[in-house]
């Protein structure tokens, strides 16, 4: 008995060491970004592994990045666009998924299948048609509202898919039926009973979508061409040159734009692992 105990203990120590070693490997690129965000371009290029710039930490990178990216303005744009898109996505995708799970109407089945199938469409296929239609024909580009609604349209398939799985396997019909007898309308039942029960999957979707939207470059760059509308990822691109990039500024800008995401992530962390895709898994 003792022998097996020690054997297990040793095994678990090995596992732990291995996992933490892997974790450090995973973190290397981030450490590099952080270190090099405080170095001058010349030193980043010549001595990428030096921890401190020979001329001391180059806080100037952060100042330049802050000013050139118009950080506050870009941050607010990113924040508003991400925030509004998320609310639309969560509420309406959950509603659609609820209907798709609880009914066996043909139209619902078709709608849901089309949504799932659409998840494999490469964005390149619709990129130019999209701007031709909404730019040249309707002239509604260069507006945050347009981008928010498009984010909603593009994201809703994935969100509905995930909510669908969750409702199907985790929300018992019995509760709803009880409420129904009490005389609530379907909308009332949904918002008073079902929606709150979906908290785990909704926070999972929220964090995944927030990450995606916050970092998105291609779609916003197509829709927003005026500077005052730029989001953080578009603003950071100004440090890319034709032949060489301003690495110091890029890394400083990166640290500043990832920071809010990390805060949000830590905030959601518990839910993510709890709710995890428990829905999607059983879809």
């Amino acid at each position, binding site marked *: 008995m003792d022998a097996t105990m020690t054997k297990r203990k040793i095994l678990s120590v090995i596992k732990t060491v291995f996992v933490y070693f892997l974790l450090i490997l995973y973190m290397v690129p981030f450490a590099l970004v952080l270190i090099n965000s405080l170095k001058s371009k010349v030193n980043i290029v*010549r001595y990428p592994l030096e921890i401190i710039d020979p001329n001391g930490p180059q806080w100037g990178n952060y100042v330049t990045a802050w000013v050139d990216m118009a950080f506050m303005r870009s941050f607010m744009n990113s924040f*508003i666009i991400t925030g*509004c898109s998320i*609310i639309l996505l969560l509420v309406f995708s959950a509603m659609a998924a609820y209907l798709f799970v609880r009914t066996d109407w043909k139209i619902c089945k078709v709608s849901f299948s089309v949504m799932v199938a659409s998840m494999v469409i490469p964005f390149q296929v619709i990129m130019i048609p999209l701007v031709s239609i909404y730019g040249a024909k309707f002239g509604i*580009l260069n507006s945050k509202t347009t981008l928010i609604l498009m984010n909603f349209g593009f994201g809703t398939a994935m969100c509905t898919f995930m909510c669908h799985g969750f409702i199907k396997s985790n929300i018992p019909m019995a509760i709803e039926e009880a409420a129904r007898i009490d005389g609530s309308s379907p909308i009332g039942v949904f918002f008073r009973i079902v929606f709150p029960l979906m908290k785990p999957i909704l926070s999972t979707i929220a964090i995944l979508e927030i990450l995606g939207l916050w970092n998105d470059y291609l779609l916003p760059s197509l829709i927003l061409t005026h500077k005052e509308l730029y989001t953080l990822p578009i603003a950071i691109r100004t440090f890319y*040159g034709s032949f060489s990039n301003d690495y110091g500024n890029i890394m400083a800008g990166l640290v500043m734009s990832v920071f809010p995401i990390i805060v949000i992530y830590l905030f959601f962390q518990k839910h993510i692992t709890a709710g995890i895709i428990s829905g999607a898994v059983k879809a």
Partner: protein
Amino acid sequence: MKKLLSVLLIALLSSFVLYAGGSSETASAPVATAEVNPAIGERFAQTVNISLMNSKPEITDALEEGAALFGSTYNVNIEVVETDNPGLTIAQRYASGDAPTIAIVDSAQVKELAGQRIADLSNEPWVEYGGDVMGYKVDGKVYGMPLTIESMCILYNKTVIEDLLGREFVPADYTSLDQFTALVEELVAAGMETPVILCSEDWALGHKPIQYVYDYQDGTKAGAIAFLKDVHDGNTTFEDNKVFNDVYDTLDLFIKYNINRDDPLAADYDLNASYLAEGDAAFWVNGTWAWPDFEPYAVEGSEYGILPFPINDNPGQGKVVVDSTKYIVADIINASEEQQQAAKMFLNWLVLDSAGQDVLINKCQIVTAFSNITLPPTNPFNLGLQEYINAGMTVDGASYMPSDHRTVLAPVMQAYAAGEVSRAELATALDDYWKANLPIE
């Protein structure tokens, strides 16, 4: 947890409110105003808003400064936006009905846009000062105003060469391959093991070397096109072409003495700049456009300059390749009459007004195509280029390749530089390409 969620919800909702509240902060710093120049035009009574798409990122700041100065003088608000992929961006912007009023693009885009989307600039005042020669023309009409003249050439570090040789370095003495080879070997003997720097990028290592073959056929665009047509018709091949072999003899020398020869395709552009600047090597096969990226590495007190591509017995020997590389075009599809007028005024201002010339030459740091501008260029590479131009020692750069020339052929040349493809195979790839394509005149 519930509390946290509600906090988040409030944060998100507040974003809606912020959004609805709208943020119209247009706090613009006071900008200097220049004199209204009647030759350019009148100041607009009402502010005209136009946009400028710049595909030459290193001059964005300078352009913004210029745009602000012009804007406050003539009451025009110019928004400068930047792109590193003009082909993609211009297609997107035209597709979305939101084309930039003014766009700085490459020749490929001018060709696609001419005749339908952009203004015929043939009657603009700057045409007579060289716009006619260096501008991009389609069917005899000028559609692209030349922004800058650049040269692909050999950049050198004069200081380190003279230190090693112990005598004055006179570039004119090393224009043939034989002379240049002797020079390189002398440098090697003096302790510089690898005096040449080659880039690794597909445009630099893949595309430019092939262009040298066209450029030095007889030094003229017509001569190069005639050769390519001969290849197309099957009358000759690259392998039989003397210039092709001469150019590749020179390239072989570069490849042999490349500072990055252990790993030629991993060369880093910035590292290359620092090699030349600090004298780790003496020659960088690149072009005058490298200055803005080179400048941060330049060593105080060191002298730098440009050399023509060394080649044996060639009419172009001792001459540098010169080409207008970026063009300015003005939209006529989405721009109103007034915006089009403002755009043309801005172009005129850059060439004809002293404040505009200052922006072009001293802020954007370019070599201009316009003969009426007498300001000297600002950096060593451009000063060198200007001397060659003034002395008439130039050959025409290649601008007649179809749009897939680079994507098809650059990888083959990169493979040649890495020793994966032989000269004969490369020649065959070039033959095949030109048999299927014709140069664009």
